[in-house]
């Protein structure tokens, strides 16, 4: 309503955030939160062997350093940039949502930043002083201690971000109290943190296991010993992850009470919920088997097999991310703001007056016979375009086509009836916000778009047209609601 609408009509806006965020989560869980304690432990174990087997100790230390440097390069380039990218993409795709979240969670994000800054300083000190620390015993001890401190800082970043992620799924008491702590300690916080911690450790273990063959030769003592150690690491964390995943799974339905309004939604959820159990058990069992093999017979474990624990952890992570979809939708902030960026409490007014009179950047503040298609396009941009494209990924035209009879043109009346009811059938859809005329215009636009898919550029290329109702000159006269915003 109040921001120019950025739009990608081929890939869709959701995908932009999804790609950046997924990369960031995988990199940071695996290579920062999980890897640093593992590397510190590797370094310590190498250090302990300095008297009994100095050559092995040297190799052990070198391997730990090489894996750490690899992770360091990835985290401080792709990891850091995708972190910033989440902010950038969220502010482009849903400025009202991220703007609101920042106002609620500023302190948490600021604290996160302080810890993050310290983490980066420590991580640089840790990596850049590694070689030098090998020159004396006290220096090496200090270096290992620095690794331990760094491990704690990495985990603290997770402690904070888990609160924000779980808040988005279930704000709990925040709606009533609107305080920072009521948002922070939301119902899903502890289950999320408990789940994500071992998950990070497993991702790190899988990554390390996979990278060992790149840095050591099969058949050597260093190869066998480190494969065996990383397998043990996985064997220790996998049961913890199993308990964490089951705990989190248990918490999900509680967080969703009232969120599944229909039988169809309940069915979709219960299907996913059952398959989640299968994935949890399947992925953990497979990883346990490979880790068990690696622990007992490290020299016989084929290198290609090592890709599987990592893939399994990816699937495992992705499956749980789906929970957020179930729980969060149709909201972006539970019961406060819908995924389209419109506030729940504004809906009654929008239904009465339509959304267009309240939109700052539209050239059709009212639907008329002449501007119907253009108005329909504007309604699409306001109400649908945060998740849908017209003709690209998750295309709204194809959604209606799938509902229609094959070979027949789209039926406007059926589309309108469906759109008014869709939030009851598809629990994840926000209700249609506009009035009857706007629904007519939207449907006309979609029918036309299905026949002749239009190029639908966003504000990033086309710029904006300012609604005559929302210019500085028009304020406060000409307001759709007589001087008060919806």
């Amino acid at each position, binding site marked *: *309503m*109040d*921001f*120019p*609408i*950025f739009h990608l009509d081929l890939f869709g806006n959701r995908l932009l955030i999804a790609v950046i965020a997924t990369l960031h989560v995988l990199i940071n869980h695996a290579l920062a939160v999980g890897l640093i304690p593992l590397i510190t432990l590797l370094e310590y174990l190498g250090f302990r062997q300095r008297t009994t087997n100095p050559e092995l100790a040297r190799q052990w230390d070198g391997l730990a350093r090489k894996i750490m440097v690899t992770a360091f*390069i990835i985290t*401080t*380039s*792709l990891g*850091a*940039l*995708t*972190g*910033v*990218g989440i*902010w*950038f*993409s969220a*502010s*482009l795709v849903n*400025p009202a949502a*991220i*703007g*609101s979240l*920042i*106002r*609620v*969670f*500023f*302190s948490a*994000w*600021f604290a996160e*930043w302080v810890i993050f*800054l310290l983490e*980066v*300083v420590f991580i*640089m000190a840790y990596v*850049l002083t590694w070689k030098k620390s090998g020159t004396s015993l006290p220096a090496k001890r200090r270096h290992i201690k620095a690794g331990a401190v760094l491990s704690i800082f990495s985990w603290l970043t997770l402690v904070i971000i888990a609160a924000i992620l779980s808040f988005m799924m279930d704000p709990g008491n925040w709606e009533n109290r609107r305080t920072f702590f009521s948002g922070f300690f939301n119902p899903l916080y502890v289950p999320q943190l408990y789940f994500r911690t071992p998950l990070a450790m497993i991702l790190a273990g899988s990554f390390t296991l996979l990278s060992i063959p790149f840095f050591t030769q099969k058949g050597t003592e260093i190869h066998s010993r480190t494969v065996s150690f990383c397998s043990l690491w996985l064997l220790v964390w996998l049961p913890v992850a199993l308990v964490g995943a089951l705990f989190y799974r248990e918490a999900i339905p509680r967080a969703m009470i009232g969120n599944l309004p229909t039988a169809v939604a309940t069915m979709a959820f219960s299907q996913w919920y059952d398959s989640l159990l299968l994935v949890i058990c399947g992925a953990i069992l497979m990883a346990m088997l490979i880790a068990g093999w690696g622990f007992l017979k490290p020299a016989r474990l084929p290198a290609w097999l090592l890709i599987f624990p990592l893939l399994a952890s990816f699937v495992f992570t992705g499956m749980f991310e789906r929970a957020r979809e179930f729980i969060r939708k149709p909201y972006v902030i539970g019961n406060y703001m819908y995924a389209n960026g419109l*506030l729940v409490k504004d809906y009654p007014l929008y239904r009465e007056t339509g959304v267009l009179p309240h939109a*700052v*950047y539209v050239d059709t503040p009212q639907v008329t016979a002449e501007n119907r298609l253009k108005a329909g396009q504007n309604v699409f941009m306001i109400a649908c375009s945060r998740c849908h494209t017209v003709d690209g990924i998750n295309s709204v035209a194809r959604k209606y086509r799938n509902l229609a009879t094959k070979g027949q043109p789209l039926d406007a009346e059926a589309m309108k009836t469906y759109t008014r009811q869709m939030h009851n059938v598809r629990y994840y859809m926000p209700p249609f916000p506009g009035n009857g005329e706007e629904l007519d215009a939207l449907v006309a636009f979609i029918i036309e778009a299905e026949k002749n898919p239009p190029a639908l550029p*966003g*504000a*990033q*290329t*086309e*710029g*904006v047209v*300012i*609604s005559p109702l*929302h*210019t*500085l*000159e*028009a*304020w*406060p006269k000409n307001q759709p609601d007589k001087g008060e*915003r*919806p």
Partner: protein
Amino acid sequence: MKVLVSLFAVVPLPGDIPLPLPLPEWLLVFLLVVSFLLHILFVNLMLGGTILALWAEIKGLKEPGYDGLAREIAATITVNKSLAVVIGVAPLLVINALYTLYFYTANSLTGTMWIAIVPFVGTAFLLLYFHKYTWDRYRSKKAFHIFILALALLVFLFVPLIFLTNINLMLFPEKWGTIRGFFSAMWLANVIPRYLHFLCASLAVSGLFLFGYMRRQRYPFTGRCPGLNRARVLKNWYRLAFFASLLQLAFGPLNFFTLPWRAVTWGLAYIVLSGLVFATGALILLYKEINGPEGRLGRYFYAIALLLSITVLFMGTGRHLYRAIALSAHQKKVLEKTGPYQAK
């Protein structure tokens, strides 16, 4: 209001996010100014360092000592770039909270380039690491090695333009309706002068930093840059800082006079002029150092760094003051529009 409404411009009046600011406004402003200056310091070092490393590596083709010098400078870039990014998150967060409406609008209107910052900078960082860790491997393929650094530099030279375009565009709601994509916003008055001002600052700051870095007692200069005269190199860093700062006497006023005048006040002029006084002090000391005896090189280093830091504080405050004045009338109206809503 008259200053805001020009005859030709349609000024949009959106409503703000109907939630209170997370901290008192003065505290957010303080955090914004301080964290931004800290961020930009490391950005300056990253960009200036990349320019100088490239220059030294090319010069090193004929004088091997400079190759060592380039390697030394390159080693600082990857550290400075990490700090630049991580420190940059704080001002990003604060400006998101404080100027939500203005900042996000500018972001949307330049969205393609705005999001392209992520792959651009990510690639540049990977190129820098590649460059750093292949110095010995590509000793016989120097042209390729230099090319990698040049690519990273191209990115570093372009990305500040994207940021400056956004920061500039957010100040002028009267322009929002006229923008068609990033480049039309980039050519608004003041973006290029600000960019030149920033480029010169990067060279000046890097000159001073490298002087401080290489004058340290423990720094093994001869081992790292064989064949180079330490005092001469140090003086050259001072010369760079001196001439780049001197150029600011041209780019600074260019920047000031291309600002739209509706928000230029005497208060702003006083702040900028006060900054100039300290800058002049730094220039005089730099001049003395450059023309002084080699044995006493560095005697004014801390004084120069302090004077330039004070200059930067003044300029940073002036920069914020201009933003506050430029937006105040519009913000008042936005608040009026959002206000009754917030109270409900």
